[in-house]
């Protein structure tokens, strides 16, 4: 099953992607290339909507880890939302959940990202 990567919204500090399909050894390189292309020097938060992800294997997890490591080095974070039970199970196996910011719905994540952006704008104005 192919992976579809859709850009939901992006600001200077955030990159938000919706993924659909399988995140496996065939498709993980596509996500890696997309992230390399769109993560800017200023990006601190990468948000993944996983609602359409049917399954994720270690190849996909490695891309999430790589992104998490980069964002943490910048004082940022990786957030995920709407994981299926099976996808959540794989994240739990590798015990990465505490390092991620997890949302149940896209609207929760949108509110959070909007708040982050408001704070960034306020700091810029000062």
């Amino acid at each position, binding site marked *: 099953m192919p992976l579809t990567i859709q850009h939901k919204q992006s600001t200077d500090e955030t990159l938000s992607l919706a993924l659909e399909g399988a995140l496996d050894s065939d498709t993980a390189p596509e996500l890696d290339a997309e992230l390399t292309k769109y993560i800017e020097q200023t990006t601190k938060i990468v948000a993944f909507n996983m609602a359409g992800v049917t399954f994720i*294997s270690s190849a996909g997890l490695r891309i999430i880890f790589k992104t998490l490591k980069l964002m943490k080095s910048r004082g940022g974070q990786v957030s995920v939302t709407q994981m299926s039970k099976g996808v959540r199970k*794989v994240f739990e*196996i590798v015990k990465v959940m505490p390092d991620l910011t997890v949302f149940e719905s896209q609207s929760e994540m949108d509110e959070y990202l909007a708040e982050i952006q408001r704070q960034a704008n306020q700091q810029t104005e000062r």
Partner: protein
Amino acid sequence: MIISVSPDGPVSNLVTKVSEELRDQCIGPEIANDCYVIIDEFHANMREHVAPGLDGFKWTLSVVAEKQGVVMTFDYPGPCFDPTQNSDIAYQPIESRRTGGLGLLIMASLSDDISYSYHNGINTLVVRRYKTEIDISQEDNPCL
């Protein structure tokens, strides 16, 4: 169902064939998705660690859907290597885990039983994913 697999091919072809078989055998999506993850882990391992440098290398997957769940048998030629005795099969922090060991942990965690044997130059890994009561109650059984 038995499939001969070239490690150079995409895993999606394999997953498509297995998904048809599991659907025909009324296996629910939760067990099916766990099976696809296990298959991808094995396929990636063959492609990255076993097949390089071996011309015409192929491995074989047998999938049997039973009343209790799914039994997947992975066969491949090569030196004896028992992954069930490998330390990567246990949890280790991401920071200290060696590259490539993650797949084995995931395979072991998603399956209910893994057994290994070696005969006449062929490694055989049998992976079982049993139905739980929750799986059974959530099954949308198209065969009924």
